[in-house]
């Protein structure tokens, strides 16, 4: 019978894969993808707890705020990456050694 621990384990695996992406990839947009995976893992946790432990709707409301923050963060981060790329033509974050020209 699938219960709370199953969802938590899937969420933990997703979190670990997101962490792996953020550690190993040096491509700016790939690191953003790892970040989104981590945020989604947190959301899955919130909703699973709201279903099995709190049995209400507050966990889901909290998850909506996480999604809002993720959307804002993705927009800003992509704008910064595009701006860096137009200034220095670099997308590999390890090659970025200065903040201005």
């Amino acid at each position, binding site marked *: *019978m*699938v*219960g709370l*621990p*199953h*969802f938590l*384990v*899937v969420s*933990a*695996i*997703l*979190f*670990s*894969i997101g*962490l*792996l*992406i953020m*550690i*190993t*990839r*040096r*491509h*700016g*947009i*790939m690191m*953003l*993808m790892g970040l*989104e*995976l981590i945020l*989604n893992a947190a*959301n*899955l946790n919130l*909703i699973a707890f*709201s*279903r099995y*432990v709190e*049995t209400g*709707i507050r966990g*889901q*409301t909290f*998850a*909506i*705020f996480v*999604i*809002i923050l*993720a*959307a*804002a963060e*993705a*927009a*800003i981060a*992509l*704008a*910064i*990456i*595009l*701006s860096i*790329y*137009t200034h220095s033509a670099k997308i*590999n974050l390890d090659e970025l050694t200065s903040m201005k020209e």
Partner: protein
Amino acid sequence: MFDFIFFVFSFVCIGSALFVAFTPNVVHAALGLASTFATLAGFYVLLGADFLAITQIAIYVGGILVLMLFGIMYTHTIARVSGEQVMMQVGPALLVVILTLFTLVATILSTAWPVKEVAPPAPTADRIGVLLMTDYLLPFEVAAILLLVALVGAVVIAQTPVRKSIEESVD
């Protein structure tokens, strides 16, 4: 049936997340991420969160992912889409990640969660709307302002070189 659907979703979700982690092509990674997000929406349906499942599809697959694909298209010429995106320090990273995962799973399995009897799934959109307009009104308004600031900020940050070139042409 619930269990079977859960395991199918888990398999697809984790498989496509691993694909994102290991594929050298950024566009393929973005498509794998779309699959992960879609199966997560399936998890939300299994958990009785119908409104969040639709939100997940609309915002993540329809919004954030399209934004990322735009970013990829802007920062790569077609010929350069794969090259250079190598993974670094895979060995130490895998060690850290597997230790983290082991700790998390061991904690999850050894904790006695105070699980209650689950109610049958009911529509959630109206209840979420009521909560947003009563208990969570202040966070809701703050989130609205945050989104506005992010919108304007993203436009300002991304448009700088265009403005510079216009000023130069005016001079």
